[in-house]
């Protein structure tokens, strides 16, 4: 095998990564505003998918409530911005520990009492739903009437306040996606990553081998939640409006996890590829529908559902593993 020892990627894999990154960096010069917004959405889901993958793909803990971390962080940053005039990066500093603490609480409650598998998944949904209804009735955060960030025309991009053009947001989320990719690559090739994989494959065996499974599962939840919190801050400042019904909704959580499952769970490339496939599919369906003048609410989602069904029936491991084998850049089996 020609894998270079230091990075863990084969030469071909590294080349592929470089080409992809170059294309993404150059993209704003090549696409129109609409496509750029689609790319922002794709990278957003690549980012959140990667964050979720730490918990499920690496440590084997199925979370169906990641909207909780996105929602909490977006509200923290938005509240600090609108009420106190504190910028998003300081808001992020407050959001990260809060999300991690929430993850820790859920993890502590669940793992202490050996709540696992489907039960754990339902517990994560329960907390997200709890937050949704709570925020929906909490006057301090404007309850169900929503929270709005002031939108003005900005003469120049203000990175510090995260106010500016779509191109600026694009580069911010691109940088974040690259960073989280590097972080995941780093983690999975360290002791902690191997421990996670051991827990995912067989928790009893991992415990028998002397791994403190409780502690490492807690790390997985906290890392995943902390990483996800940036997505929440980004969401608040990109869309400028927050409704509990939307940010905490269960369908948000499902959107986050579809990408990595379609792309290939437990792989580093899966979440990225999955985001491209799913968002690309949704937008293509949109374009085709409007080209044919079909104005049928729900028709697009039916096609979307059928495509999901076909992928999951035909490719049990997701799109990336078979594709990687064909390209000759397969990551080592994990």
């Amino acid at each position, binding site marked *: 095998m020609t894998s270079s020892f230091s990075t863990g990627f084969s030469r071909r894999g590294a080349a592929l990564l470089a080409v992809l990154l170059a294309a993404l960096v150059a993209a704003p010069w090549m696409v129109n505003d609409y496509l750029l917004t689609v790319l922002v959405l794709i990278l957003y889901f690549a980012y959140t998918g990667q964050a979720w993958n730490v918990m499920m793909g690496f440590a084997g803990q199925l979370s169906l409530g990641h909207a909780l971390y996105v929602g909490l962080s977006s509200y923290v940053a938005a509240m600090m911005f609108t009420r106190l005039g504190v910028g998003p990066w300081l808001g992020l500093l407050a959001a990260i520990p809060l999300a991690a603490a929430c993850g820790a609480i859920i993890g502590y409650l669940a793992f202490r009492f050996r709540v696992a598998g489907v039960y754990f998944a339902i517990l994560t949904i329960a907390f997200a739903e709890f937050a949704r209804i709570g925020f929906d009735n909490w006057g301090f955060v404007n309850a169900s009437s929503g929270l709005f960030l002031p939108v003005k025309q900005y003469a120049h991009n203000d990175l510090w306040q995260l106010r500016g053009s779509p191109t600026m947001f694009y580069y911010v989320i691109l940088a974040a996606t690259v960073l989280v990719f590097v972080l995941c690559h780093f983690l999975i090739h360290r002791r902690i990553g191997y421990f996670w994989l051991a827990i995912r494959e067989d928790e009893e065996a991992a415990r028998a081998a002397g791994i403190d499974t409780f502690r490492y599962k807690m790390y997985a939840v906290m890392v995943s939640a902390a990483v996800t919190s940036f997505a929440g801050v980004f969401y608040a400042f990109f869309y400028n409006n927050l409704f509990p019904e939307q940010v905490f909704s*269960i369908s948000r959580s499902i959107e986050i996890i579809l990408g990595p499952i379609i792309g290939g769970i437990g792989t580093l490339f899966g979440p990225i590829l999955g985001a491209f496939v799913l968002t690309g599919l949704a937008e293509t369906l949109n374009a085709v529908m409007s080209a044919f003048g079909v104005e049928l609410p729900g028709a697009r989602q039916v096609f979307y559902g059928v495509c*999901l069904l076909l992928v999951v029936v035909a490719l049990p491991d997701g799109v990336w593993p078979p594709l990687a084998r064909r390209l000759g850049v397969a990551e080592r089996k994990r």
Partner: protein
Amino acid sequence: MPFDVYLNVAVGGVLTGLVYGLMALGLSVIFGVVRVVNFAHGEMMTVAMFIAVVLFSWFHLDPLIMLLPIAAVLFVFGYALQASLINPFITRPEHSQFLLLVALAIIIANALLIMFGPDARSVQTAYAYDSFQLGRLIVDAAKLYAGVAAVVFTAALFALFRFTLIGKAIRACADNYTGALVVGLDVRRLYALTFGLGAACVGAAGVMLVLLMDPTPMLGPGYTLLAFVIVITGGLGSMPGALVGGVLIGVTEALAGLLFTPSVKSMFAFAILVLVLLFRPQGILGRRLA
């Protein structure tokens, strides 16, 4: 507020809870035997609800009369679904099953949206505003009929599992998959039957809920979640547990809606879920996990 009001609301909650219990029973039966979590459970219920709405508005067929026929339609739907799509997935990991059923849920909900539009449909039966008075207790007729029908349907299902050979065979599959294969049971067919029975439960529950509320195509996820909460509260794999959980959640929601605002009522259901998961993870009537 006088005590009577609480009592009336609580009794209404018990009756609604019995219908919830039947819905959750469907999920519990499917998970207990096939080991697949039916994430399209709520969507299957909305299918039954809309069949009931269509039959009522076109042919004036009362939902209570159509209860068994619609449950039968859902049975066939569930049987076919398990035999064709889901069966290859029973050995796949949870997240893979989850994706399959979420895809199904998306298709069902949006197909209903295309056919019926986003607005709520209602069924105005002759007895919609009737009520019975027992001393100081006033009970809605529709709720009473729905609750009684739920109990009868559940009792029939209990009898099926307890006293028939098919029921015995299904229980054998649930207890020991390999053992069932060894003694020559047609596990594939029994799984399809079980899924069909689960679908029939949720279908019957949906028909009764039409009497209590107006269905919209996007109702599904909320009820899927509610069914989970009830099943876990009552005890996964315990059939009486589903009913007990349903009643507990039904009463809690009704009283929370009365004491606070109706919009926070499901928060209390989730609070109960969290408490149960923490202090009695096997559920109220569930057997202790191995």
